[in-house]
């Protein structure tokens, strides 16, 4: 290369028609590229990998779920001082991308932070490279982005905004309190902020979201309206609002969809119920199951089984969807799995559970025995882990 450069320089100089008195050119300092990236790479190598965003550590833990070890904890975010609050990593292995949102929770106590009400700062949808988590692009969304989901065809990302500042606005106009659902086409160019973004006013404090199989409908758990909303992602409008439960106050929060797209599992945190809905234009409640604690993100095993994490007391419940009954329930001590929040079945039937911990120290991911639901392995992650993204071998 060095010889080639010298030749090119000589050629260029000799090719000039004017006669210049040219000083000798200096040697380049090094043949290494400037600013080589030294962060670790996470090759899949036939392993089951897991990615967890740590909300209070501004990092993503990358896990080898076969060995149940942490391969690395990589800092993420746009602000090197403020808490970016990364939430819910979602992987797209085919695109080599990992998506997450930056929520910017209010963490500073200072005159200006209070004066500015902690912002509210706009959040960001971040695209990272799956192999080393280097930033690939970002899209500015609305304040308090909370959950995101990628459509089955990988052509649509949907982001909720559980904006409590907006939700608590003192106005009789409910539309003024409604936050949006952000719809982003990940195939558009996110590298220069030019991604196609639509913000669809949806409901008060939308928390979690699931997409229909074809991505044309988004189902949204509306914490502040006690409803399950349906958003037409093509027409970009809310088309239905269904009561989240039978009680006067249910407080829907978590929402997941079955792999084939026939069922939704909505977790009502005040009512302490799990409501199973059909999918379609107007989802119908098929079963309402009382939970032994505050329910979080349920994991589907096919279309016939659900595993529901609960907190206070901490544990999981197995739901048989064919009979709409609770088939099994176990509890965990704080030192084994504190504040379980997300259950996940791998393709080969292994079961993983995110344990948030106490939100000020490390959380963990545990593997459960699929039959007994006993904890059989554990790996510590960062502070306040969010949901688990699993990349199959």
């Amino acid at each position, binding site marked *: 290369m060095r010889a080639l450069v010298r030749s090119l320089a000589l050629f260029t100089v000799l090719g000039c028609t004017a006669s210049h008195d040219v000083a000798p050119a200096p040697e380049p300092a090094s043949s290494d*590229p*400037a600013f080589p990236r030294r962060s670790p790479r996470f090759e899949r190598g036939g392993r089951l990998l897991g990615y967890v965003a740590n909300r209070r550590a501004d990092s993503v833990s990358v896990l080898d779920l076969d060995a149940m070890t942490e391969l690395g904890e990589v800092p993420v975010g746009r602000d090197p001082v403020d808490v970016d609050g990364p939430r819910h990593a979602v992987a797209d292995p085919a695109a080599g991308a990992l998506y997450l949102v930056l929520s910017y929770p209010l963490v500073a106590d200072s005159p200006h932070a209070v004066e500015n009400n902690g912002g509210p700062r706009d959040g960001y949808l971040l695209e990272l490279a799956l192999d080393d988590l280097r930033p690939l692009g970002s899209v500015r969304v609305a304040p308090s982005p909370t959950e995101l989901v990628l459509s089955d065809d990988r052509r649509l990302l949907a982001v909720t905004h559980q904006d409590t500042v907006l939700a608590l606005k003192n106005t009789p106009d409910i539309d003024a309190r409604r936050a949006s659902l952000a719809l982003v086409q990940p195939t558009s160019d996110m590298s220069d902020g030019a991604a196609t973004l639509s913000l669809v006013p949806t409901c008060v404090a939308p928390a979690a979201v699931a997409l229909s199989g074809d991505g044309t409908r988004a189902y949204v758990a509306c914490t502040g309206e006690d409803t399950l909303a349906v958003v037409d992602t093509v027409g970009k409008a809310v088309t239905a609002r269904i009561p989240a439960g039978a009680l006067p106050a249910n407080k829907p929060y978590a929402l997941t969809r079955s792999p084939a797209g026939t069922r939704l599992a909505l977790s009502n945190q005040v009512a302490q119920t799990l409501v199973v809905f059909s999918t379609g234009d107007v989802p119908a409640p098929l079963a309402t199951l009382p939970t032994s604690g505050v329910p979080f993100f349920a994991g589907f095993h096919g279309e016939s089984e659900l595993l529901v994490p609960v907190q206070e007391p901490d544990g999981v419940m197995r739901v048989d969807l064919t009979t709409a009954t609770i088939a099994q329930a176990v509890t965990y001590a704080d030192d084994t799995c504190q504040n379980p929040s997300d259950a996940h079945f791998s393709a080969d039937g292994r079961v993983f559970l995110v344990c948030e911990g106490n939100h000020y120290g490390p959380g963990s991911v545990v593997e459960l025995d699929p039959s007994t639901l006993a904890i059989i392995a554990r790996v510590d992650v960062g502070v306040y882990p969010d949901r688990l993204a699993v990349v199959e071998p």
Partner: protein
Amino acid sequence: MSRHVGWLVSALGLVGCGAPAARAEPTQPLAEQGETLFASRKLSPSSINLFTCSTCHDARPSGDARIKPGAPLAGATLRSSFWGGQENDLLLSLDACRSTFMNARDPLAADEPQAEALYAYLESLEPGDAGTVPFTVVREIANLPRGDAARGAQVFERACATCHGTPHEGVGRLGLRVPVLPEETLEAHPAPTYSARVQRLVFIEKTRHGAFLGYGGFMPPFSTEVLPDANLSDLLEALGVLGE
């Protein structure tokens, strides 16, 4: 673009065809170009940028002469963590400085001539301290005990004067937008809207948060490692920002 091609483009820029027939200046080696850049505002294209790298960083540890908010840069190319663990990539860390303090809109690409020159300079400083440099940001701003004014005057000279100039007059400050301390900051936070106690908290907040955590502006934050609370107490005493 490789560094070779970047150097070539740079060289060709000086000896390009059609240029007036004049003796070309010898091209500086990359590392020297980087050293010049280290002390130049031109690392950002912004016309309102007042900072250079050297405003906040020493190239090598310089003893107790100046208190700078950033770490010495010798060793930076070997470090695996920056900004107190919030970054693991040197170029992203540098771009955080450029965008936050130097008002640069676009990130620097590794194959840009400026990046190549700056990296060559950083490499020329090695081997430095490759260890992670602690950088503790105080998030929750609380009042501090009273300090010593005489010691505080020395702290001002070592930590504040480069940017803010002399106390009360601002002689030698970086620019007119850099406030004269303490008067212009107090004017921006007037009584009775801001009580004397909150005015003192504002000074503590600005020193600890800089442009971050809701304050704004271009000032870098001073960590507890480079400016312990006791030094900050002394500084407030020297400025007469007593909270009373």
